[in-house]
């Protein structure tokens, strides 16, 4: 069951062997040396394993073939091509779409800049190079099908170009730019909101598509962060009323499905707010997601706080720091550092949950897919439409979870 778990059969004879070197020789080599050996060890190590391999290979080949044939022959991807704009930005007016592009370049530049400043370089083993080449060609093929016209090609290819420019600038400036990068990430979200909204921009009611999914998730995560920290500190507080209140808040919102909160945000929240303060549906949804998310962030931060060694609290007290300063200077910096991977996976979860907006009359990516396949000329193309939406989410969440795994290794979480 577990590799290398069988004792070498020769071990029983081991006491007879006098020279120590011989005993080492009988240990079977774990690392396969030839391709044939690899296949034997990994696919046909026993009769049972061989049968399993053959059967599952048959199943995989059959379904893989069917899938490929469907993707390249039967499927009609025109539904995605015709509705690309709805998928990405919903009902965002065409003449204002430049605002979205500008925001995308801003984020792309920041990503490139932080990459450059961090000094990380991609490692190019032959296998990774091949994988990246295949991936790149696939992306280009998909784009070649979807994008029509020189203008949109230039706009799209400018994104990797911006990332590259950021990387180069980051590498050149390295140390000095560190502060700029951090300030950039703090300011980028408000900047994007201003970019979309200000100067006769587009009101939130018509934001939509995948852009809305991303914006909502980012907004809720950012806004829920301070609330979550306060709730976590409140929960651990020695003041009984405050701690009970925080426990109640956290458990209530963690125990209830998000859908019920979304529906309440649509119908009840407008009644509860003062009549002068009427918020648009999207803003209310940001509020709902923030409240929901803060309950989870609170639990993550609490985990981080518990992970800080007791001695740190005692040491901080011993040097005479007040509770506030102890938390701000000693405990929280350590606790929050430990929560980074959990926060990323929380963000991924929240990001996926934004597709629940489809339950309301908001054109997010999922609703865009349903609308697209409801059009007269694309009836029956639900599979294609929904898979495109799924792929959009998958690309973002998968790369984020990979990034989070790398970060986890670099931060050494769990190794201390």
């Amino acid at each position, binding site marked *: *069951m*577990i*590799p290398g*778990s069988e004792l070498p059969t020769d071990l029983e004879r081991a006491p007879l062997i006098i020279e120590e070197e011989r005993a080492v020789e009988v240990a079977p080599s774990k690392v396969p040396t030839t391709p044939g050996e690899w296949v034997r060890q*990994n*696919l046909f*190590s026993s009769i049972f*394993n061989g049968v*399993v*391999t053959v059967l*599952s*290979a048959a199943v*995989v080949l059959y379904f893989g073939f069917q899938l490929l044939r469907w993707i390249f022959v039967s499927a009609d991807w025109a539904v995605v091509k015709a509705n690309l704009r709805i998928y990405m930005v919903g009902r965002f007016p065409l003449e204002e779409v430049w605002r979205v592009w500008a925001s995308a370049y801003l984020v792309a530049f920041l990503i490139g800049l932080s990459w450059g400043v961090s000094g990380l370089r991609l490692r190019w083993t032959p296998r990774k190079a091949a994988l990246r080449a295949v991936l790149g060609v696939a992306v280009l093929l998909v784009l070649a099908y979807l994008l029509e016209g020189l203008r949109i090609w230039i706009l799209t290819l400018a994104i990797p170009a911006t990332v590259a420019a950021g990387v180069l600038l980051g590498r050149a400036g390295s140390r000095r730019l560190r502060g700029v990068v951090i300030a950039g990430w703090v300011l980028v979200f408000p900047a994007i909101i201003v970019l979309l909204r200000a100067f006769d921009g587009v009101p939130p009611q018509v934001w939509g598509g995948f852009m809305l999914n991303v914006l909502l998730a980012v907004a809720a995560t950012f806004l829920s962060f301070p609330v979550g920290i306060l709730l976590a500190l409140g929960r651990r507080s*020695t*003041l*009984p*009323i*405050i701690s009970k*209140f925080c426990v109640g808040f956290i458990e*209530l919102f963690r*125990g*209830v*499905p*998000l*859908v*019920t909160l979304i*529906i*309440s945000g649509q*119908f*009840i929240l*407008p*009644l*509860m*707010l*003062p*009549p002068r303060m009427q918020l648009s549906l999207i803003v209310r949804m940001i509020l709902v997601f923030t409240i929901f998310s803060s309950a989870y962030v609170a639990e993550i931060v609490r985990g981080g706080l518990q992970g800080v060694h007791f001695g740190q609290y005692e040491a901080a*007290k011993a040097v005479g720091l007040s*509770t506030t300063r102890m938390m701000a200077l000693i405990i929280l910096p350590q606790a929050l550092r430990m929560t980074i991977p959990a926060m990323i996976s929380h963000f*991924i979860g929240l990001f*996926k*949950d*934004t*597709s629940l907006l*489809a*339950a309301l009359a908001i054109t997010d990516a*999922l609703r865009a*897919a*349903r609308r697209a*396949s409801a059009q007269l000329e694309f009836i029956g193309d*639900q*599979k294609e439409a*929904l*898979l495109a*939406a*799924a792929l959009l*989410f*998958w690309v973002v*969440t*998968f790369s984020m*979870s990979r990034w989070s795994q790398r970060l986890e290794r670099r931060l050494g979480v769990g190794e201390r």
Partner: protein
Amino acid sequence: MLSLMSEAAVERKVAPPLWRNIRVLRGFGQAVFVVVVVLAFRELFLNLQFGLDRQGQELNFEFLRQRAGFSIKEGISYNPNQSFVRALQVGLSNTLRVAVVGIVLASIFGLIMGVARLSTNWLIRKIAQVYVEAVRNTPLAVQLVFWYVAVVLALPSGVSGGLSIWNVAFISNRASVIPWVRAEDTFGVWAIFLVIGIAAALAARSWRTRVSERTAQPPRRFLWSLGTFLAIAAVGYVVAGNPVRLDVPKFVDRTYEGGAQLSPEYTALLLALVVYTGAFIAEIVRGSILAVPKGQKEAAEAMGLTPRQQLRLVVLPQALRIAIPPINSQYLNLTKNSSLGLLIGFPEIVSVGRTISNQAGGATQVLLIWMATFLTLSLTISFFMNLLNRAVTRRGERR
């Protein structure tokens, strides 16, 4: 802690002035907090009442007695002339139906996939990995709609009977029909035997433990208790005279007869929940097996246990203990996610509640009912998982 002690020590010598007395400050701070919270809630509540007044609604549960007037296609018996309360009960029963079955199936599926992730067979490992990575990284809502629209509704038409599986089960876009066991009148008699059987099996178990401790024979507790139970159950079956009957469905006159009929919505929701939660459970299973310290397995190996014994006696019991808390939260998630039935029109408690508040208003009351329902469900599941957790831990200590 430390601050409390030092403050107490100071207090004994000289009482500090009021504005620096920690107890006064704590009390005052909490009083301010309570006042602020109460004021905020009062404001929200007054706004709500004002808004409802304008809409001509009242904030009580009286409206739930009204006639429902809408039909619900599945669940316990119901007709549109019954009240909203009954409609909510139907919704709750549907939530439970999908959550309980979903939890059982997702556990089995997740366990299989989690073990497959650790298989020595490269192909199996990769298949499981692709499944986990594809499913975990796409939204459940998208998957659910996909299962419903692109898979279940795209099945062969129900008018012609759909896909027949050896004539004992049918799958079509109208319903999935599977054989089902039905209780006869004498089932009560058999049930008594079953209870006695369980008691006897437990007795046999503890008897085997004692024998094993006295004589150092292998205890074979599972075999003995299973055997005892099966024997008593078999006797009871004969005494009660066929207390259960297998109900095999038939396709007659363009309709299905007998068996258990699952609606397309139920099938899609169940599939989506099982596949989605299964991926998370698979990762938990894999993670907790890997989390058992390597030394444990090496020690077991050094003691000469066979690979099977190493897994069964050393690795799995410890992995189970690591796995239970995260699996509990997956069960809670599955239960909460059943509310996504709303997206495809499965009448569970959230979509029934939404229909009610669309028809008769009362969104606030409906929200309170939802909250009460899901908090109760969460507490119940956590209660059982805690029992399990305690049982597992105690067994670990005894050994």
